[in-house]
C-alpha cells in the first residue's frame, strides 16, 4: 500500500490533463455565461485539485486514515466558507460608494 510506486505513465497523464484544464479555464472565462462563469472556474479548479490530491499527493493509494484527514480538511473548509458567506451575504447591509466601511479604514490622501 504505502510501498505502491505509481507508474510514470499515470503522472504524465495527470500532468497533460492539468495543462489542458488550465487552457480550458482560460478559454471558458471568455465565454459569456453570466453567473455561470464563476461556477465553471470553481468546477475546473476543483477538478484539477482533485487530480493533484489523488495522484500527485498519492491519497488514492494511501490508507483510509489519510483519506479521513483530507476529507476532514475539506469539511472544515466547507463549514468556514458556507457559514461565513451565508451570514455575510444575507445581512442586507446598505452599501454607499463613498462612505463604505472600507473607505474609513484608509486615511484620506
Amino acid at each position, binding site marked *: 500500500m504505502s510501498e505502491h510506486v505509481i507508474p510514470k505513465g499515470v503522472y504524465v497523464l495527470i500532468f497533460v490533463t492539468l495543462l489542458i484544464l488550465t487552457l480550458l479555464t482560460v478559454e471558458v472565462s471568455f465565454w459569456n*455565461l453570466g453567473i455561470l462563469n464563476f461556477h465553471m472556474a470553481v468546477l475546473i479548479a476543483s477538478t484539477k485539485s482533485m487530480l493533484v490530491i489523488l495522484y500527485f499527493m498519492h491519497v488514492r493509494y494511501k490508507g483510509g486514515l*489519510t483519506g479521513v484527514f483530507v476529507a476532514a480538511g475539506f469539511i472544515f473548509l466547507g463549514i468556514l466558507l458556507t457559514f461565513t458567506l451565508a451570514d455575510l451575504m444575507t445581512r442586507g447591509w446598505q452599501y454607499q460608494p463613498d462612505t463604505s466601511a472600507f473607505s474609513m479604514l484608509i486615511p484620506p490622501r
Partner: protein
Amino acid sequence: MSSNHSGVVAHQFDDAVQQRETANLGMWAFLITEVMMFGGLFASYGYYRWKFHDAFVEGSNHLDYLLGATNTGVLICSSFTMALAVQAAQAGKRKSTIVFLLLTMVLGLAFLGIKAVEYTEKYEHHLIPGHGFQVASAHPNLVELFFAFYFTMTGLHALHMIIGLVVLSILVSMAWRNRFSTDYYSPVENAGIYWHFVDIVWIFLFPFLYLIGRS
C-alpha cells in the same frame, strides 16, 4: 538504536513503513491548518468580490492573464517534476532524485521571476495599495481593496514558494550526501505534498484573481 536492519528507523516505531506513515499523516495535519489559513482569505475575498463585483472586475482587468496562465503552467510542470522526484526517491535512484529536485527548483524560481515582473509592473502603474495608489475609476477605494487581496493572497503564496525552495535545496544536499534509501524517503515525499499543496492554492488563485469578468 533500533533492531531494524536499515538503521534509519527511530526506536518508537515498529518499522520503516509505520515511521513513514506517521510522518506523512503529520504533514497532512499541517497542510490542513494551511488550508484553513488560506480558506479564511478565500472566504473574505469571496464576500468582497460578491459585494463589490464591478470594482473587482475592474481590478482584475489590470492583471495580465497571460502571465498568470503561464505561471499556472510553470507550477503544474514543477508539480510534475516533484512527483517524479518522489518516485525516484522511492525507487532509491539518487541521481534522478537530485535531477528532478533541481528541475523543480528551476521551475519554482521561474514562477517567482514571472511574479516579480508582475509586481514591478503593478508598482510602476501605482497599483500597490497604500498612499501611492492611483487608479482611474469611479470607486478607486474598492479597486484598491481588490489589489489588497491580490497582494496578500499572491504574496502569502509566494512566501510558501520561497519556503518550498529552501526545503528543496536542503533535500538536494541530503540526496547528494546519500541520506535517502528505499526505506527512508519521507522528507522527499512530505516536501512533495507540501509543494503540490502550494500548486493547488495557485490553481484556485489564478481563475479567482485573473479571470473575473473577462467575457
